[in-house]
């Protein structure tokens, strides 16, 4: 009587992983994800600059700032009635965020798989590119915090939140040292994220020209610097007592 034989050993000296691919490439293909990252990332960068310009109105005083906030809510009135534009804009931002986070996470996971088990040594000179996922994750937490704090006035907001007085809400929130510090740190991480991110955009959209690449590389650093310095000025001014309520 014959006993069952084990499966024949794989005698091919080339491991399975290295034989010609018979499966379709990963879906969605990485180049598509990268283009999605580039488009949504650019939308965020444009938003950041726009947002910064609005934020800096805080230095012009309560009236200017609150007027600006009201203007935002009723933008494109009467063409688009009520807060219609604002909600459409929010829809685009949320959709972009979902796509950006999905693509970024997928790319990050694929990268970890393709690297193999022998991790590359950590290179300080590439810290921005190596930490995109982690800086992104902290930014995501910050976005949730920030909306609860200053848009919705829920959970983490300072006591006495008044939807009609964004100026005071801002000052009250930033008067809390931990909030000011968290905000400042996140701005620094955003600067790291976008300085590498903008450089990535030119690559992902196929910018091969020498001058274009040099210009974008420099502009990326400049935008990051402007965003971090501009936004940091606000909590610093609040903590220093330069910006106060009333």
């Amino acid at each position, binding site marked *: 009587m014959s006993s069952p034989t084990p499966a024949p050993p794989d005698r091919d000296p080339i*491991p399975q992983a*290295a034989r010609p691919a018979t499966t379709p490439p990963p879906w969605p293909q990485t*180049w598509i994800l990268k283009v999605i990252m580039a488009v949504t990332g650019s939308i965020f960068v444009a938003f950041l600059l726009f947002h910064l310009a609005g934020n800096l109105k805080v230095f012009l005083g309560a009236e200017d700032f609150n007027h600006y906030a009201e203007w935002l809510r009723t933008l494109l009135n009467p063409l688009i009635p009520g807060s219609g534009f604002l909600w459409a804009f929010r829809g685009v931002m949320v959709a972009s965020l979902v796509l950006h986070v999905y693509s970024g996470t997928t*790319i990050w996971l694929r990268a970890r*798989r*393709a*690297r193999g088990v022998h991790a590359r040594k950590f290179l300080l000179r590439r810290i921005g590119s190596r930490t995109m996922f982690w800086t992104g994750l902290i930014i995501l937490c910050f976005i949730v915090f920030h909306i609860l704090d200053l848009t919705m006035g829920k959970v983490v907001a300072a006591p006495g939140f008044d939807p009609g007085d964004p100026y005071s809400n801002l000052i009250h929130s930033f008067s809390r040292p931990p909030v000011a510090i968290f905000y400042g740190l996140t701005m620094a991480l955003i600067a790291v994220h976008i300085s590498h991110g903008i450089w990535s955009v*030119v690559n*992902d959209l196929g910018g091969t020209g020498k001058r274009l690449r040099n210009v974008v590389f420099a502009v990326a650093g400049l935008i990051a610097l402007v965003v971090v310095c501009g936004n940091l000025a606000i909590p610093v001014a609040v903590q220093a007592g330069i910006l106060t309520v009333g």
Partner: protein
Amino acid sequence: MRLILEVWRQESPRVPGRLEAYEITDAREEMSLLELLDRLNHQLVEENQEPVAFESDCREGICGTCGIDVNGVPHGPENNVPACGQHVRSFADGDTVRIEPFRAAGFPIIRDLIVDRTGLDRIIQAGGTVAVDAGTATDADTLLVTHEQAEAALDFAACIGCGACVSACPNGAAYLFTGAKLQHLALMPHGKMERGKRARSMIAQMEHEFGPCSQIGECALACPAGVPLSAIATLNKERLRALLRRKDN
């Protein structure tokens, strides 16, 4: 010169590997890293031990056969130089030098320092060629190429296919390699005829076995042929072009 070599030893793809330390007491500054491994192998053979398996051919930087990680950097400490052109003078007397195979999931180890780089061959098979009837050589001026165009294409044709870009990449990506081939052929009249088709198939094949690019830039520092980093952007450029154009050329 005395050096301690920590060398990756692995009998076959299926058994785990380990680093083993060997001492070389008579290394000389002018030795290349491959000659250092030759020296080690003489020593091992004299001691009746199994020599270290590693690959090399031309030993003058043109074939792309040599490929080892030295202290975690592909080819060795000098940027843009293949292992056969790296010298012992980069190290100081008494240094420990860690020599490993190229590291990437797309490069499985065959034995010791030899890895299977046929993943790169499969990318080339997917479209890194020009489908012309080669026949007998035509007159040199049948297809006119300007000097500038030829020079630009040569910057990318310089790739020797060693795989250092993949090993240098913390994402295990083969963008510099694939992008170099796409850019080289996109600049030449023969290559232009299948430009779109080539981008689609080479990139799909690349994505089977290699990782995504995160614009880290290590590849171009390691590349012994000095392929410019813009090759990584060429990849998406050619793919987007194929998407919008919807033609084979």
